[in-house]
């Protein structure tokens, strides 16, 4: 009898010990809301792929301070209602300590009231300026502000003595934000917008708008949109025989655009993150190491080129990882550490967050590239 009791005690002790070692370090839960399907899937899909790849890598290397990460991804389909539901679920049911996403500015704005109230840090992967301007305590972002891309283009124009431009922007969140910034910043560079045209995200012919631009006094065209619209614009510009230089946004900085626009892509200039020209960067570039590792890993995992957009998720995951390494795993600690991020060389640029700045990048996050013979060429 006594023997039996001893045995029982021993067994239960073993169980407790064993369980102790297993449960001592439960995984750190990080949430992601991304527009994997729907109209913004060109953003959400590479972002999800990148985030999953990164978490896998971190876990293989032993996790963060010995604890594994668990990434919970919800697809929001570019729909604000679904984004709010997903964030609520992440916070209240999955109890994540930090969130990345959403891919679009609209959805990122939609979930801000929820995370602010629950006090969980979120790193948005969308480009809209108003996500972090004015600064919100719990909201950060990794995608470069549209205004930086606009300034990069205007700087170049000023150098080339271009004074009058026509703009053609897509009527969705991305285009609307670009259009706003283009109009806002033009005067600072002594540039006048003589024509302001738009097109619908599903439009298949822009010759009418471009004909109007052809007849105007503009010296250059700026097109702001994401595939496939800008490819149609590039083709139509060629069809109409327009000789003005054509500028595009970072929204098309993926190989897909060159493929779609075909011969029309030749000579187009656009601001882009460094990721598409990683191998052309000088050796002393601070981001080069991260960029090359990302590009190579992505190609190995998914058999396609890693792009600019996936990079936003790379930065978000790595920023959270570093914050946790420095300060612990509570949402508040992660937030405080995020704000202290200094000189973090990521894919999108070199991040310096502060109390006044939750976007963290300067216009040096962009480089200007030109398409020559179907390849990206860095403009120095």
């Amino acid at each position, binding site marked *: 009898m006594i023997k039996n009791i001893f045995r029982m005690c021993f067994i239960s002790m073993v169980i407790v010990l064993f369980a102790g070692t297993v449960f001592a370090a439960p995984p750190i839960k990080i949430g992601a809301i991304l527009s*994997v*399907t729907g*109209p913004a899937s060109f953003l959400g899909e590479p972002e999800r792929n990148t985030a999953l790849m990164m978490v896998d890598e971190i876990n293989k290397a032993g996790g963060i301070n010995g604890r594994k990460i668990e990434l919970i991804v*919800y*697809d929001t*389909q*570019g*729909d*604000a*209602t*679904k984004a*709010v*539901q997903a964030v*609520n*679920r992440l*916070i*209240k*049911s999955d109890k994540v300590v930090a969130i990345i996403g959403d891919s679009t*500015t*609209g959805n990122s*704005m*939609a979930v*801000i*009231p929820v995370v602010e*109230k629950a006090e969980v840090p979120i790193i948005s992967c969308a480009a*809209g300026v*108003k996500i972090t301007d004015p600064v919100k305590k719990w909201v950060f972002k990794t995608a470069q502000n549209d205004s930086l891309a606009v300034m990069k283009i205007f700087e170049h124009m000023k150098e080339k003595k271009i004074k009058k431009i026509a703009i053609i922007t897509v*009527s*969705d*969140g991305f*285009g*609307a*934000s670009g259009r706003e910034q283009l109009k806002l910043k033009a005067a600072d560079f002594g540039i006048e917008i003589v024509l302001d045209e738009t097109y619908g995200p599903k439009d298949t012919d822009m010759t009418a708008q471009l004909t109007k631009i052809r007849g105007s006094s503009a010296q250059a065209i700026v097109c702001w949109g994401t595939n496939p619209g800008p490819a149609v614009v590039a083709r139509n510009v060629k069809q109409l025989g327009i000789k003005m230089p054509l500028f595009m946004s970072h929204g098309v900085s993926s190989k897909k655009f060159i493929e779609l626009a075909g011969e029309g892509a030749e000579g187009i200039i656009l601001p882009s993150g460094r990721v598409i020209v990683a191998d052309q960067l000088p050796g002393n570039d601070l981001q080069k190491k991260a960029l090359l590792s990302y590009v190579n890993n992505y190609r190995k995992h998914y058999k396609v080129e890693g792009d600019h957009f996936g990079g936003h998720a790379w930065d978000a995951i790595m920023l959270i990882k570093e914050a946790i390494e420095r300060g612990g795993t509570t949402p508040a600690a992660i937030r405080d550490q995020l704000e202290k991020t200094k000189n973090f060389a990521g894919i999108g640029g070199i991040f310096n967050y502060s109390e006044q700045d939750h976007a963290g990048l300067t216009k040096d996050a962009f480089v200007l590239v030109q398409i020559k013979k179907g390849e990206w060429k860095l403009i120095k």
Partner: protein
Amino acid sequence: MTKEKRQIFVFLIFALALLTIPFLLRESYLLNVLVFIGIHTMLAVALNLLLGYAGQISLGHAAFFGIGAYMSGILTARFALDPWLVIILAAVSAAAIAFIIGFPILKLKGHYLAMATLGFGIIFYIIFNETVGWTGGPSGLSGIPNLQIGGIIFDNDMCNYYLVWIITIAVMLLSINLSQSRIGRALRAVHDSEVAARVMGINAWVLKVQIFTISAFISAIAGSLYAHTMTFISPASFGFNFSVELVTMVVVGGLGSIYGSFLGAAILTVLPEFLRVFEDFDIIIYGLMLILITMFMPGGLISGFQLLAQKVNLKTKGK
């Protein structure tokens, strides 16, 4: 129990169950899902009046939802008007638009009506998108205040739950009453055969416009509530896709059934949560569901439940 008494009894249980749910769920995120189910139920009930009772399709109902949401959003966020007043104003405006557009549009039948309402919906979507100065355009409108009465601010799921569901239950009650009134009987006559109804002296056209107007009124209220609970709106929530989703809710739940509308709204709101495992498959599952239910279950899922209930009833009685 008479049939009518039983109906009241069933509705009371239904309403009571809904009002006690929050005590069981507490702070769970399901409460948040239920808030959206409430808003969707309101919309589905509104569309059901038109689709199920009057037999008239609308592929543009998201427009009325959007009118409510944007009027509430713009007038409270930009002009700081009293939100409650704006809700009524928005609902009346949507109803007025429906009334005016209703006369020419409801003259059309079947496929032509479907196409005209679709066009109407898309025109409003374009207006939400293009009038950037008012609506904020594609990047959306933020900073919409939460509703409040006295000291209660409706900024958490629990408060919003009661706000939304009390109004939804009222809307359901109204809709049940409507279906049993003279209008409801006349509507059913129109649904079955418009010519026969006309012979019996029912002015089908005016009747349909009336229902269309009521339906728009309710949809706009749902829109206002949506704007105040989300505090952010963007045009993408009010496009053609959402109109189709609403039709799907009504059809999947059961045409002409109030509980069906609730069931449809609940299923379509919760389904994405379960389909997460399948990721990209959900669009195909929606399509299949719509086809299969229309083909094999014209009464929707609720008719299946009713059949089941009857069988169980028979069995217990047999014993």
